[in-house]
């Protein structure tokens, strides 16, 4: 078989297998490159909030006491929350909020506090539409976090959502529709349809290998389809 028909045959059959995926790869690639990453991250939705100075007069419980009460603690962080000092106590698999004035346990934080924090952080348009406590299964878009979470939905055009840790009142993340679109095309791009995170999957490896072979055959074909014109042009001058 002549090289050119060999290349054509392989290019044809391999792209029959990976053609759809090639369209998806380039389509998702264009989405990811055309929209600036900072926008995808939702930087425009968040206003920088500086934490308040610690009011030491109201700190009556020392860090030592907290560490006695929580022997598994790995770090203890003193901050101001809603005007009062609190300790964020983090251990390997749990975290809580402790009132630095009374030593009392204040997790999970209530909806009013979360609403206040959300308004403080939000720089987008629209108002809070809904605040929900998520305790069990988390939605795909915030899989990596640990429940319980507060989910705050805003009424902006892009359906912005803020997530707060319900135990520590920490601002965890923000989502909006372009982020969700990005997450979806990322799934198509890396072909991990379950967790959307594992690039080491065999489906992707197989598709990329076949795609690469198809590309090689395509390059081979190019060589022939443009190569002939050169030879006929040289025939003209000679």
């Amino acid at each position, binding site marked *: 078989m002549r090289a*050119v028909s060999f290349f054509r045959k392989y290019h044809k059959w391999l792209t029959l297998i990976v053609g759809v995926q090639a369209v998806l790869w380039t389509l998702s690639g264009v989405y990811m490159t055309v929209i600036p990453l900072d926008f995808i991250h939702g930087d425009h939705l968040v206003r920088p909030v500086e934490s308040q100075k610690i009011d030491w007069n109201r700190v009556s419980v020392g860090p030592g006491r907290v560490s006695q009460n929580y022997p598994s603690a*790995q*770090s203890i*962080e*003193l901050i101001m929350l809603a005007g009062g000092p609190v300790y964020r106590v983090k251990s390997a698999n749990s975290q809580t909020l402790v009132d630095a004035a009374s030593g009392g346990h204040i997790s999970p934080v209530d909806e009013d506090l979360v609403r206040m924090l959300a308004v403080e952080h939000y720089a987008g348009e629209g108002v809070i539409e809904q605040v929900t406590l998520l305790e069990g299964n988390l939605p795909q878009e915030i899989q990596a976090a640990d429940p319980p979470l507060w989910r705050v939905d805003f009424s902006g055009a892009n359906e912005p959502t803020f997530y707060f840790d319900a135990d520590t009142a920490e601002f965890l993340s923000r989502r909006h529709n372009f982020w969700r679109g990005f997450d979806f095309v990322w799934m198509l791009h890396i072909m991990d349809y379950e967790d959307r995170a594992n690039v080491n999957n065999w489906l992707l490896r197989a598709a990329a290998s076949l795609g690469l072979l198809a*590309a090689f055959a395509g390059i081979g074909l190019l060589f022939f389809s443009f190569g002939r014109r050169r030879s006929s042009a040289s*025939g003209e001058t000679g």
Partner: protein
Amino acid sequence: MAAMRWLHKWLGLIVGIQMTIWLLSGLMMSAFNMQTVSGADRVRGDNDLLPASAATLDAETAARSGPDARIVRLRTILGQSVYEIVGENGLSLVSAETGAPFDITSERAAEIAREDFSGSAPVTRVILREAPFLELRTHDGPVWRVDFDDGRETTLYVDGETGRILSRRNNVWRVFDVFWMLHTMDYAGRDNFNNPLIIIAGISALWLALTGFITLFSSFRLQDFDLISAMRRWRGRRIQCTLEAPDASPASQALAPGLSYFDALAARDIQLPSNCGGAGTCGLCVVRVEPDRPPTATERRLLPDSELRNGARLACQHRTRNDDRLELPEGVLGAKPLTGRVTETRFIAPFIKEITVKLNDRPARSPVSGQYVQVEIPEGAMESASFDIPEGWRARWFEHGLPARIEAPASQRRSYSMATAPHEDPKLLVLNVRAVPPASDKHSWGVGSSYIFSRKPGDEIVLHGPFGRFRPTERASELVLIGGGSGMAPLRSLIRHEYSQYGAGRPVTFFYGARTGADILYSEEFETLAKQRPEFRWVVALSDPGDDESWSGRKGLIHETAKRDLKVWDKDLLKAEFLLCGPPALVEASTKMLLGLNVPSEHIHVEDFGV
């Protein structure tokens, strides 16, 4: 579809390499284990509980350490309790027990790194650097670089301010990062995949993929998906057939199952004549089989009934069968392609070029007058500028719209009849080729004719053949030729043979139809011949003379002109043989006219050009 292919090809030229780089780098990144790339596989991962001594810390000492603090974080570094204080002027570390500054010195940095690293490999070097730099692109500030001698040159970066591990690099990551750079096309910073270069390349690649995808639909035939036959072919299974030919002794041939005879023979380098490449539209791939095989509808349309009854079939319409017997036409078995060079080209009518080819070698089988050759039309583009259309005739070309380029999407073959008699010079081939204008808006100029028109003296040309049995029998006592346009070629060949020393010199009447005076080919040659040879008559009729005052000859369609003469023929029509050649309309109308005059069909020989 041709436009799609054209686009796909050019886009391939522009982004094909980058597409390959994306696939390669993507595959490599997918192949590398992310645990290794991130260095997570060599992290000790102990739980760093606060030291027992932390239990004694009170609020007052804490307040003294950071009176203006916004955040005070109690952590463990190297087994000691440390306050990380975030205040007005940034971040600082103090020992929680003594309140003294806790600086991340090079010793501490090395110790922190060693505590994090799971292996026993020694630290080889600790140096202070200022981020950001290539291996640490998103951090700002002083960092300790701690190198390990662990066989993959692991480097841990320890934050000079907080003592935290910022990242874990190793040679796997370093290679990975090069692929990442190739993937993002950000050759300076490596991380910005919103750069204009990748956006332009990405959009082009999207079009490359889309045009390719659309092209796919027309790239397959149903037969391609006959998996069972494909499996059998792949396993090397073959079908045994007997091939016969007038010019070869019968031989057994192993052919691939599941293919048409046309394709299966082509795979064995036995090339049947064809203009359509096996698509079932040209009717040239005629072979003979046992007549009991039912003809397909295509065959009934393309072949005359008398031929079908004799077992003539189209090889592209029947699949290979075990123990089949097939009779191939002359000049196919054991034939080799002929090569030659163009020596001369010239326009002889507004749309017809005469092209002369000198073959490199004498054909193994001598051609016979009236035969045709098949020209290889390679895949690629032809520039219409290279047609060299004479000034005065350009307007007639542009009536049809002439694009700058005409594309042959795949290599194919086209038939062209010889316009000279072989005895004149067996190595010389003269062809009369007519440019075929677009059949509709959606089509372009014919690829084969465009290819011939773009040839220049010196260009190489590859041919097959000669083929065909377009000639009178020896029984005929008189010949009547009817032709038009480039249908001139084989008729001229027959006439030049007839009146040469090898011919019988029988009386010939040549009815030739053309549109205008300019479209008549070789008129001087035939007028001269008519003067020298009283038994030769040359009758021309113009179908569209317009207001050409100088034309005093016949007008109208050539078959009607011929009919008028033949009706009052002074000799016995039954002893004459008729040779018709040209476009299908002419051939069809003339055949009908002759049958109407009670000419037996076996006295009518036809060469239908199909266009």
